[in-house]
């Protein structure tokens, strides 16, 4: 499976997005941020690449803060 990650500023933001996605059929998992994407010690949300556009729309509608979505 090909993954992408949603980068966020803090774990609070990650949990917020996890909660936003919970009622949908989108599968996500909170994981440590891959080192090559950021030197931050926090977490990000791993998603399926196929869900990227749907998620982007959901995030825009909800005003949930996020930094970027990156393919890994």
């Amino acid at each position, binding site marked *: 499976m090909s993954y992408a990650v949603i980068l966020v500023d803090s*774990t609070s933001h990650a949990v917020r997005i996890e*909660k936003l996605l919970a009622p949908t059929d989108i599968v996500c998992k909170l994981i440590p941020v891959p080192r090559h994407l950021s030197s931050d010690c926090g977490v990000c949300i791993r998603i399926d690449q196929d869900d990227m556009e749907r998620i982007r729309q959901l995030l825009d509608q909800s005003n949930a803060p996020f930094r970027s979505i990156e393919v890994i």
Partner: protein
Amino acid sequence: MKRSNDGDPSSRTPEGAIYLDNAATSWPKPPEVVAAMREFQETSAANPGRSGHRMSIQAARVVYETRQAVADLLGAKDPLRVIFGLNITDGLNLALHGLLKSGDHVITSSMEHNSVMRPLRELVRKGVEMTQVTCAPDGTLEPKMVEREVKPNTRMIVLNHASNVCGTLLPIQEVARIARNNGLLFLVDAAQTAGVLPVDMLDDHIDLLGFTGHKSLYGPMGNGGLLVGERVDPGELHPMRQGGTGSRSEHEEQPDFFPDCYESGTPNAIGLSGLLAALSWLGERGVTNIRAHEEALCAELLDGLAHIRGVEVYGTRDAKKQTATVAFNIRGMEPSTVGLRLDEQHGVLCRVGLHCAPSAHRTLGTFPYGCVRFGLGVFNTFDDVQDALKAVHQLAREER
């Protein structure tokens, strides 16, 4: 824990003393609170937001759920703008020290607790101008008196929702309108009301709301903070402390986003897990039902005290215009003596003295001796009130 017939925990201590000090901290707590804290400690108590492993993430989820539950109860739009700290004093300090600077003018009332007055006195030393509007001798506030004090450099109005001494409610909705019409920030200290009276940041036009977890939200001690409304620019709210947040670790500068900017250091996550359970319990019990019970207890206490010769009651003496916190004195007896004798001879636990609110006591005419305060809570019963009244009656009779 001993439970009464309807499933509530008992308001009596194991030795049988009646707990009437809920205005200081509520006791007992719903059993669900202690159970949740135990479960959190045993299953999820990793450092929330600091590590990427599953237990740390689970702890972060609990903290976030608590943010959401606090926001939902108090009408805040954005759970990320719920800032957790040690208690409400922490939250009020952040709002006052974080926003007011030299040359700003702030308006407050004469009924405030030292959690507002001491930061304000410190800010006055640093060049902030303060006006304290005098309340009536029953602690009530005429909103027009506040509007009269607005000046070109006024930045903020800060008020408690209810007095911690005598329970008198202040007209926060009317004062919110004054703040809005004059372009001022409105900070409310809801220490005595959140959980027992409806408080809604959006509907009531409150910009900053201080709350505490351990009083009428029925959570454990060591939790509280500040809710920050949309009209407050995070660039203008300076954090009280800097430190590790688990975010932006590559930078030595403090993050500039909610809530991390204001929450350095490991939070009291176990306490928050208890607060979350408390808020869930509160949602099931219902704020309206809690208020109805406390109002009925308060009316019975006020009525009983009014019929005891030698007892003087302070405040509105009207259960509808106050919280279930009742202040009184027995003529000729020092409050400290009354408190000791209530405890030792009658098993009634309450708070006497100045209640960290010298200005409020000046307003009520009880400075410097203070008064006796009975703070009723949701788990108190009519039997508690009657037994406490008998104790006061006996002390007053002995004094005559």
